[in-house]
């Protein structure tokens, strides 16, 4: 009898569960409290030495530091407050960094931005350790682009010393600018490679081909913050080919017939993947490079599929896998394949489908830690930025809005992404970080800014 009752009870409970499952309108959501990854920091306004001049110049530099810290992905700058400014303006650091006062403000650390004549002094008070010090002194050159670089370094140094995090404020971003050609007799549009700082400032033109250059790929810099050598695709001889820019001169890089498009280089700079129609179809090709980053042997046809278009290869950080776009099974989606070892070169490798959630998944880029892939996908209309997480095998949407977003690229810190929008004739550069996914427009000026990549 009890056994029978038990069975009836079980059936009843299963039925109730089934009904609740059937009529549930939304997913069950469980709210979990998580600590914010952003540390609150107070950055003073410019505090000038008595009778000091050049306050507007110091203000510009302060803006640079504020941008760098606020967009570092680890810090949130607190709003300006009169009481804080009053106490920080005191010349006596013991008063300015009064532990009792700052303990109440719940700041991780406090920065006093102090200008005197041609010197900038940055004082920092660590509220956890109750320690203050003159963190950096820089002699200003009055050249804003030079001094801006010094500020970027201070920002990265602050992150490393106080939060133990690697900053990316000193990195440059390569991109292209497409403009109408002022010469009516020539081609209608020109596109050249440019570079700018992390905050979009200090924009400078790198190619002067008076032609059409796209998809730059950085080579390693001689030192951090310098303009790297780079590969790019140019139409200067009519058919698009991959060139290497060295000392402001573009030299043909890969010896291969036909169109050469969409180059991608491995993290160790020992392999180059690109798309070529040398065989009569837009296939995926690989070119091995030697230690001097010069092509080693012949290019290898890596992947081809019937009636399909292959595009946008991207190496995994260890260089052993390639993500790429193919429409071989319908709309363009992202596939992963193993890069063949030497000797396996002419075997058609199998490629497995990675992104399944959306249609038209394009322009993949692997994070340097190998845990994530960022790409652009059609999302109920516009193309948005999505992230595939290899640890959870989940795809999640990072950006929202009306404009198309494409060409996302990870920074070295695996936290920041730069991408460009495409809205009719307007294309701008944005950065976003995973800890504070609010896009920040960094580009200014005329022309369509596209194909951004972080310098290395």
């Amino acid at each position, binding site marked *: 009898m009890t056994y029978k009752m038990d069975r009836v009870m079980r059936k009843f409970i299963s039925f109730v569960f089934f009904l609740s499952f059937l009529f549930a309108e939304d997913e069950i959501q469980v709210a979990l409290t998580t600590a914010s990854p952003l540390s609150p920091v107070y950055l003073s306004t410019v505090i000038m030495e008595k009778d000091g001049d050049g306050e507007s110049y110091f203000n510009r530099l302060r803006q640079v530091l504020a941008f760098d810290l606020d967009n570092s992905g680890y810090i949130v700058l607190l709003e300006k407050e009169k009481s804080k400014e009053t106490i920080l303006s005191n010349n006596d650091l013991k008063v300015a960094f009064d532990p009792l006062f700052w303990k109440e403000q719940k700041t991780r650390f406090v920065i006093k931005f102090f200008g005197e004549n041609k010197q900038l002094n940055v004082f920092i008070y660590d509220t956890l350790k109750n320690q203050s010090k003159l963190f950096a002194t820089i002699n200003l050159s009055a050249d804003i682009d030079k001094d801006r670089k010094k500020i970027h370094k201070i920002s990265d140094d602050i992150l490393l010393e106080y939060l133990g995090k690697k900053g990316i404020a000193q990195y440059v971003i390569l991109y292209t600018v*497409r403009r109408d050609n002022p010469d009516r007799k020539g081609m*209608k*549009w020109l596109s050249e490679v440019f570079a700018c700082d992390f905050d979009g400032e200090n924009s400078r033109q790198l190619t002067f081909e008076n032609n*059409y250059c*796209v*998809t730059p790929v950085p080579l390693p810099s001689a030192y951090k913050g310098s303009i790297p050598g780079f590969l790019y695709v140019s*139409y200067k*001889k*009519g*058919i*698009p*080919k991959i060139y290497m820019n060295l000392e402001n001169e573009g030299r043909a890089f890969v*010896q*291969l*017939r*036909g*169109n050469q*498009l*969409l180059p991608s280089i491995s993290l160790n700079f020992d392999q180059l993947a690109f*798309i070529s*129609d*040398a*065989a*009569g*179809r*837009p*296939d995926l*090709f690989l070119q091995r490079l030697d230690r001097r980053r010069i092509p080693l042997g*012949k*290019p*290898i*046809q*890596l*992947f*081809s*599929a*019937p*009636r399909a*278009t*292959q*595009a*946008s290869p991207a190496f995994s950080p260890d260089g052993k896998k390639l993500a790429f*776009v193919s*429409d071989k099974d319908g*709309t*363009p989606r992202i596939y992963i394949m193993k890069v063949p070892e030497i000797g396996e*070169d*002419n*075997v*058609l490798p199998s490629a497995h489908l990675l992104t399944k959630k959306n249609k*038209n998944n*394009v*322009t993949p880029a692997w994070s340097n830690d190998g845990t994530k892939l960022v790409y*652009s996908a059609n999302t109920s209309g516009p*193309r948005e930025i999505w992230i595939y997480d290899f640890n959870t095998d989940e795809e999640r949407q990072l950006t929202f809005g009306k404009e*198309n977003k*494409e*060409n996302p690229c990870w920074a070295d810190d695996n936290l920041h992404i730069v991408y460009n929008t495409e809205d*009719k004739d307007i294309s701008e550069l944005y950065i976003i970080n995973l800890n504070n996914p609010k896009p920040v427009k960094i580009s200014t000026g005329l022309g369509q800014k596209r*194909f951004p990549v972080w310098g290395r």
Partner: protein
Amino acid sequence: MKKVLSLIVVFLFACLITASCQRTSSQTWENMKTADSFFNHGYDDSRLINDSRAFIGPEDADFIALNEKELKTQFAISDKAIPQPRYSPGDKGSPIGSLGDFKKPEGKLADLFKNLHFDTDDHVLRSKEDLATLHQMADYLKRNPRVYLTVEGHCDERASAAYNMALGARRANHVRVLLIKNGIDFNRIYTISHGKEKPLALGHGSDDWSANRRVEFRLYAK
């Protein structure tokens, strides 16, 4: 009983014969997607080539190719791998000085070498009219063996710039293959992909998009 059994055997045999004579659905799909049906059955004057060696000629090994055997089982006749000309115009050894020497066709030639159009996200010419035009182009090129041609693939603005660069190459190569299948030397036809970088119509509506999904031609007479 024996009669019934023999009837069943005859029936099964007839089914087997009928089925083996039918085109498989995948074959039909292949033909539809690649315009094979037009080229194999549509025109009397087309030169049908079933073996790629007949028109590719000796392939210069400037890259390590994928295993041909594996690819052969996958590709349709109009999706053959036909290598690009060995030299780009302007290269050492090229019969042509520069791609800048190629001009947009004018006069009657402009009517013949007109832009051909594609469906969204497609790289195959669908319209019978376009395919007929392509045959006429091939005839002209056969009659004028010193004329060289560029096929420039373009896309509309809707897909990403990067993907469109590859799609433009796909479109240009599809048209190139069709011309070569009609007897034109593969060394006379160059492809260039412009993706969506050079739109013809500057608007943002469906008419502009369809005008921009195209291949354009340029000619050079040696």
